[in-house]
């Protein structure tokens, strides 16, 4: 021990630490790092000092290390020293010192060694990729970790890096939480169960209970991180939920979402019309809402007793709270729907009595107004403070009751416009009125045709239609709603060049026509030697009779039958029209895109000849929020000159974010009712996008998208026009689902043949 002390004194004088750290702290360190660990601690401090962290940093380490060691153990604390050194190398000294100072609070939030180490790792990683932002994140660590666990923290930092691409400025705005996207990701990561995971279940649940088919959306992201708990809200069109319920376990969050949607459902069923606010005071509004909540829940529970149990489990208010409006209201809420709950407060009991006395008119919403108004008055007379600003409906499953009040003027939604557009389109997308939607675009086509000429110079305007997740291979999971697909109308153009190009392949056209005739629908095939069938197979009969008479065992399969072979498949052809398709093919004067067009036309001839329903989409991308998709032909549309003019109107440009395009095409194909669904992708280069530096990222995402499609019974096949594309294309699509064409000029003849072979 005395030797150790000697060492320490030496270190102290070297680093001039004796000015900063008291004797008690040293003893704490000696306790936290007993025996050999102390040596390691000294070494760690030595190397930090040697790395040039300076006296302030060393002091921060000395102060932080025992506090961290108490919570996450000595080893993790030594890792902290290493991380600080790393951060110092990658970013700057100030960040490293901040990290050391923030560590004890983080350790307290994270509680466990594994989480703490993960957090350190995420910070180190961030220091490497976004050195200018690491300070911002460390400063907010405590605040962030109050809502995210270590995994969520890592996901959030990675999202920030992915979001900003190369721009340090955008990274700073993301990590300082001043960007809506940062808050959105933050909300998605902050609970154990997110709305995204629950959405389908919630909709099905409400549909099952009352036959209500709602649209469920997340609340718009909050404007800042300082907040009070959020509640669901609904109006005549939408039910909006918080992305997550932070602070609840996975199981509790799940039940909260269920209880929440059932409660909103009860309002929709039993609150016939909205109450006019009129002259009511805020406290009265809150109390009328509370009574109304109890009334609809009581009615719903008469029909579904299980719902009553579910709701009651969230009411945990107890008697003997101080005289605060919120607490009293929570007690009243419980008293009204939990008959077993006893309360001694006269006001609570009065409310309870009035509510149950009105038993016979529970189906009349006016009683809520009467009782709530009276109780609100009483509360006022009791001089109990009610703070409208800080009031939050309790228990958390209940909505904010905006849907039961009529405030006169319809309140403008606070959501920004993009959100509204996206919502309205999303509706169209999820409802089963797709054909309707299509029809409309078809009708508009002629008008569009003319308009396109007029505004040829105008920038084209796309409509955001859907959001898709994206797989992050570093994170090992999907980031929800990360990409946005924007659909564009193709501008019709003169199709003569295509026709000319096709004219160069007369033998191909002839061959295709012939093949179609033989591959055509429902050819009867005679099948001999069957165990069952319409007719006796004479040859088999004779052989069997001979065998039997000769005393040998004989074959029982003596029938023949005819089987019809139906073609039952639909195809979506997805064309890559990224910038690289503008390149001219070596030795010719045509571009890759022109060849794609010609091949598409020939293939379309084959497909429409066979009567297979098919659609043609083209895609390119301009960052994650603009995956551009052009619908050249829908499944319902006929293949005609119009399609050709639309094909001719495709223009090369932008990048290749293929994963989102695959998901979008898959969603489209999924609506087809055929037995087999084939997605045929023609691409000429490696996936890339302007906001992505990590080459593997988009490849892995596309691979995940293909796997997802395979799960849903959609076959994906890729035609690669890049001779060297084997490595990444086979990684994405699988070895057997890729055909590489070295000689791009061969595409127009190869594509239809490939199709016939694939679908034979």
């Amino acid at each position: 021990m005395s030797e150790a002390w000697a060492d320490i004194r030496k270190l102290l004088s070297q680093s001039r630490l004796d000015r900063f750290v008291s004797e008690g702290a040293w003893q704490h360190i000696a306790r936290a790092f007993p025996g050999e660990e102390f040596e390691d601690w000294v070494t760690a401090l030595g190397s930090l000092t040697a790395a040039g962290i300076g006296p302030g940093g060393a002091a921060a380490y000395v102060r932080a290390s025992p506090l961290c060691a108490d919570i996450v153990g000595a080893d993790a604390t030594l890792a902290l020293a290493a991380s600080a050194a790393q951060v110092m190398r990658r970013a700057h000294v100030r960040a490293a010192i901040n990290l050391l100072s923030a560590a004890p609070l983080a350790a307290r939030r994270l509680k466990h060694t594994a989480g703490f180490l993960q957090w350190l790792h995420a910070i180190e990683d961030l220091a490497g990729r976004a050195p200018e932002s690491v300070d911002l994140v460390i400063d907010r660590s405590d605040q962030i970790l109050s809502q995210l666990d270590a995994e969520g923290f890592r996901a959030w930092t990675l999202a920030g890096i992915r979001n900003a691409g190369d721009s340090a400025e955008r990274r700073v705005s993301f990590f300082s939480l001043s960007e809506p996207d940062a808050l959105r990701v933050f909300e998605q990561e902050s609970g154990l169960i997110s709305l995204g995971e629950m959405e389908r279940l919630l909709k099905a649940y409400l549909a099952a209970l009352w036959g209500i088919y709602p649209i469920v959306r997340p609340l718009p992201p909050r404007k800042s991180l300082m907040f009070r708990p959020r509640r669901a809200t609904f109006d005549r069109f939408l039910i909006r939920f918080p992305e997550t319920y932070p602070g609840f376990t996975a199981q509790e969050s799940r039940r909260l979402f269920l209880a929440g949607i059932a409660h909103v459902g009860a309002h929709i069923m039993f609150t016939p019309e909205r109450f006019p606010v009129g002259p009511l005071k805020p406290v009265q509004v809150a109390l009328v809402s509370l009574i109304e909540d109890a009334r609809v829940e009581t009615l719903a529970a008469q029909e579904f007793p299980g719902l009553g149990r579910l709701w009651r489990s969230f009411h945990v208010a107890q008697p003997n709270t101080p005289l605060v409006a919120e607490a009293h209201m929570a007690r009243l809420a419980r008293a009204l729907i939990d008959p077993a709950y006893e309360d001694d407060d006269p006001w609570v009991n009065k409310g309870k009595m009035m509510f149950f006395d009105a038993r016979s008119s529970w189906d009349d919403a006016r009683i809520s107004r009467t009782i709530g108004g009276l109780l609100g008055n009483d509360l006022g007379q009791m001089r109990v403070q009610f703070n409208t600003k800080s009031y939050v409906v309790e228990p958390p499953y209940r909505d904010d009751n905006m849907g039961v009040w009529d405030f006169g003027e319809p309140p403008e939604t606070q959501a920004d416009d993009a959100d509204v557009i996206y919502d309205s389109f999303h509706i169209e997308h999820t409802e089963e009125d797709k054909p309707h939607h299509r029809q409309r675009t078809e009708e508009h086509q002629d008008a569009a045709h003319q308009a396109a000429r007029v505004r040829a110079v105008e920038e084209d305007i796309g409509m955001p239609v859907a959001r898709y997740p994206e797989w992050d291979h570093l994170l090992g999971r999907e980031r929800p709603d990360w990409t946005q697909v924007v659909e564009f109308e193709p501008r019709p153009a003169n199709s003569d060049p295509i026709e000319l190009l096709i004219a160069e392949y007369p033998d191909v056209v002839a061959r295709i026509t012939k093949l179609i005739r033989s591959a055509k629908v429902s050819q009867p095939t005679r099948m001999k030697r069957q165990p069952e069938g319409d007719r006796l197979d004479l040859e088999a009969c004779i052989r069997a009779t001979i065998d039997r008479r000769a005393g040998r065992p004989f074959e029982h399969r003596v029938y023949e039958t005819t089987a019809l072979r139906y073609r039952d498949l639909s195809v979506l052809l997805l064309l890559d029209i990224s910038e690289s398709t503008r390149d001219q093919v070596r030795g010719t004067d045509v571009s890759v895109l022109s060849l794609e067009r010609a091949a598409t036309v020939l293939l379309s001839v084959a497909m429409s000849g066979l009567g297979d329903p098919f659609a043609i989409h083209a895609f390119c991308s301009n960052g994650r929020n603009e995956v551009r998709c052009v619908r050249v032909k829908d499944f319902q549309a006929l293949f005609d000159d119009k399609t050709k003019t639309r094909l001719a109107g495709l223009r090369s440009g932008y990048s290749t974010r293929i994963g989102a395009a695959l998901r979008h095409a898959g969603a489209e194909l999924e609506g087809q009712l055929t037995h087999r669904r084939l997605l045929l992708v023609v691409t000429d280069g490696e996936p890339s996008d302007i906001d992505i530096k990590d080459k593997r990222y988009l490849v892995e995402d596309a691979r995940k998208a293909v796997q997802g499609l395979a799960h849903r019974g959609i076959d994906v096949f890729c035609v690669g026009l890049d001779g060297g594309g084997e490595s990444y294309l086979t990684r994405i699509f699988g070895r057997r689902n890729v055909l590489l064409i070295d000689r791009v000029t061969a595409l127009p003849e190869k594509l239809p043949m490939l199709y016939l072979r694939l679908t034979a």
Partner: protein
Amino acid sequence: MTLDDYRILEEPYYRPLGDEIVIFEAAYADRMPMMLKGPTGCGKTRFMEHMAWRLRKPLITVACHEDMTASDLVGRYLLDAEGTVWHDGPLTIAVRHGAICYLDEIVEARQDTTVVIHPLTDDRRILPLEKKNELVKAHSDFQIVISYNPGYQSVLKDLKESTKQRFAALDFGFPNPEIEAEIVSHEANISTDLAQRLIKVGQRSRHLKGHGLDEGASTRMLVQAGRLIDKGTSFETACEVAMVLPITDDPDLRAALNEAVSACA
């Protein structure tokens, strides 16, 4: 041939929902071809058994499947020790000896198969056995009945117009809650109160028809759940085993249905 095996001796339970019994009797009096429409498990087959018992006629039921050929209905030559012998198919037996032939889920059979019934369904009432070179005249008791579940299969499967127009039809749906509870309570031997709760669960699943489910839980499923309860299974488990698990493989829908079951329990 006596067809005794095909006679139904004890009355099968059937709870009429309207005047379908009277109508069917009238149709039988004229030997009119009948079509029973309705979702699976709503009681079409049970109704046929009941009518066969009521009319005291043998009932030959054929479950149609997509590999069924015309020979499976009409008959075929088989090979035996002496050479080939003709065996009548179920339809031919009914035509020759006078039974009600019930072709269950006829859309499942291929369209070229179903045309063999055409000559039986107009005033000719004959069945040509092409391969045997025989023309069978229908017995005076013979009637053909088909069942047909519109819309549950893909749009690709539908009856030919020429087939459809030969039949008169009875439309079966799920009975209203009181009657359905009566049926479930009788069939599963459980209390009316319990049966009503099962019906409530069934209705929840029917709300999801077209919203993830192709078809809601049928009366048959509810009866099965009821039987499990009668044997001592708990309400929620019985619903899960007899209804939720068979009806869908989608985890979200399963969860939603299970939660709806808990809400009803």
